[in-house]
């Protein structure tokens, strides 16, 4: 590999880090990383890029769990919405509205109603509803979108129960940077 200039090396390293975290780096991150890369503080680089990183895990919850996780009024509102939706014979207005806003074809709205009915049923069973399941989380997002003031915090609380910190090991940072620089790395 040809010797890189300082600017080329920095660009290559930033690109490697962006690939590692699978997202564009923010301007604030780039400013901080520029100083860290200059001294190759890989531990601090990994810590910076790990802020806010989370991964999903399977986390089942029952109606009883919902009542334990949320304040009493919030839990009651959340469970009543699900119960009313599950027992509805037609797609309720709140679900129609939020699905329409998200450009979901009207012909598919019934399928969403069916999904909510399943979710409500699973909440009543011992096996519970998996908050780490992507379909579950999409459904929760619909509830939050229907009335952010009423359900936003509750949905965020429930979704967070299936999220765990996912820090980047610094040796992955070292490898990415060394490869970007063309250094021999083990």
């Amino acid at each position, binding site marked *: 590999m040809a010797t890189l200039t300082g600017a080329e090396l920095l660009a290559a390293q930033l690109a490697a880090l962006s690939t590692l975290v699978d997202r564009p780096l923010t301007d604030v991150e780039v400013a901080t990383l520029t100083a860290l890369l200059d001294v*190759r503080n890989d531990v601090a680089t990994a810590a910076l890029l790990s802020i806010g990183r989370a991964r999903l895990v399977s986390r089942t919850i029952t109606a009883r769990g919902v009542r334990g996780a949320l304040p009493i009024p919030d839990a009651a509102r959340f469970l009543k919405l699900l119960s009313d939706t599950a027992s509805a014979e037609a797609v309720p207005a709140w679900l129609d509205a939020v699905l329409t806003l998200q450009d979901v074809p009207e012909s598919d709205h019934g399928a969403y109603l069916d999904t909510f009915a399943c979710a409500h049923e699973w909440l009543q069973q011992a096996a519970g509803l998996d908050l780490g399941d992507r379909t579950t989380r999409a459904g929760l997002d619909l509830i939050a979108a229907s009335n952010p003031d009423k359900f936003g915090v509750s949905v965020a609380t429930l979704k967070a129960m299936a999220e765990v910190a996912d820090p980047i090991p610094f*040796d992955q940072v*070292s490898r990415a940077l060394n490869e970007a620089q063309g250094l*021999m790395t*083990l």
Partner: protein
Amino acid sequence: MSGETIEVWGTTPKVLESAGTGFASGSLVPASNTYDKIVDGGGYPDGQFILAATFNTAPVENSLISLYVREYAMDGSGVRTDAPETTRPGRQIGSFQVNDRTASQPMILTVNDLPAKADYYLHNNGTGQAVAAGWKLTVVPRSYKSA
């Protein structure tokens, strides 16, 4: 007492690197000079390696700097194994333990039965920090004799 086996140390340490370039965590760098056990070590089979290195930021406690060798053939041809590669780093003969501080730290590794002639490489093995330029690596020959 007499006749028992005692250690004997060479009186002329060989400097393998007097002021090495900095090297990042995970990377591998060569020391400048070859060590020939006959020429440099008087035929003493073992050696004590002394690494003096500093870090700009405290490294991970108890991480390692590992020592690799690139050996020469002893058939007079002067050939040696290919230079280490990422996927074929060569033979590791030991590791220095790293302390989590920035001040210069002496790290010592004694190795039995060194290669007859070899080039030496250091691997910054998960310290999380770059070793600053200026590191020094020395080897002191060691053998045994009857008292």
